């Protein structure tokens, strides 16, 4: 009986070492929830500003270049702010989780995760900027969702497997969004807001619930 326990222990050791050495297990679900929250806040403001811009346009009946430039500039700032807030809070919660799991934030697996996520992400980012350079804005929303999804699928080999399903969901959403070009902001809010919150919650529920109660 004790020999059996010893063998079971050995198997558990093996499993733990295989997982710890090849996957970054401390990605926190709360990071996803926080990122999703900021995305929804951002989408709310963007919606507000766009509605305001169009109502002014309707009232005055003229389309002014400076106003449109102003709106574009504000939206750009908003996107940057949302991204920054999302990254900072995502880092914070994952950093907190590494202290619970007693792993390093910047180790071999998180490095692998970062590199493999960044490859499709940077390629996609540059591609989308080039599309904007050519005044092709219609596929920015579907494109960003698809590239982000591909980046997650690629990175998921080095972290919790839920990320793979989040990635696939983003890709599907992006492909659907290609058929509803005018509704880009809604798709963006669903992809970067709602999906992050749902998957973040699932990840938190599966992996962290018990340790945060204790």
């Amino acid at each position, binding site marked *: *009986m004790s*020999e*059996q326990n010893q*063998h*079971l222990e*050995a*198997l558990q*050791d*093996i*499993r733990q*070492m*295989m997982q*710890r*050495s*090849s996957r970054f297990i401390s990605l926190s679900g709360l990071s996803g929830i926080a990122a999703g929250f900021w995305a929804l806040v951002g989408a709310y403001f963007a919606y507000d500003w766009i509605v305001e811009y169009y109502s002014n346009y309707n009232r005055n009946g003229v389309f002014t270049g400076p106003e449109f430039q102003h709106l574009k500039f504000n939206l750009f700032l908003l996107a940057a702010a949302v991204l920054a807030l999302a990254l900072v809070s995502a880092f914070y919660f994952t950093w907190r989780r590494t202290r619970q799991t007693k792993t*390093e934030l910047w*180790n*071999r697996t998180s490095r692998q995760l970062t590199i493999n996520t960044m490859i499709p992400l940077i390629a996609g980012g540059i591609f989308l900027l080039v599309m904007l350079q050519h005044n092709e804005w219609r596929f920015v929303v579907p494109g960003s969702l698809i590239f982000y999804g591909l980046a997650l699928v690629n990175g998921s080999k080095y972290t919790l497997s839920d990320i793979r399903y989040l990635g696939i969901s983003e890709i599907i959403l992006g492909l659907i969004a290609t058929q509803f070009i005018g509704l880009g902001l809604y798709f963006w809010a669903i992809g970067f807001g709602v999906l992050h919150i749902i998957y973040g919650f699932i990840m938190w529920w599966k992996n962290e619930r018990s340790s945060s109660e204790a």
Partner: protein
Amino acid sequence: MAINNPISGLNKIFDNRIRLGVMSIVMVNDEISFNDLKSLLEVTDGNLATHLQTLEESGFLKVHKGFIGRKTNTTYSITRAGEKAFKDHLGALEKMINGVK
């Protein structure tokens, strides 16, 4: 071969926790550095070096000595023989657990 326990088929070399840990890690990573092994297994330099040498001498590990700048960077990967021995060991463990049930 004396290293195989005739009753269980368990490999004596993997009786040690650190050696078992090293094998588990090199199974799932193409290659891994000495320092990464050290931090994953939470062992001292000397201790780890001894066990790595045992595994290398058994033909289970390949050692690559390289440099990052001027610092030595030694990485390890698993050999065919190591992969087979480790899988056999896992199979034996499984059998033992199922058998005692």
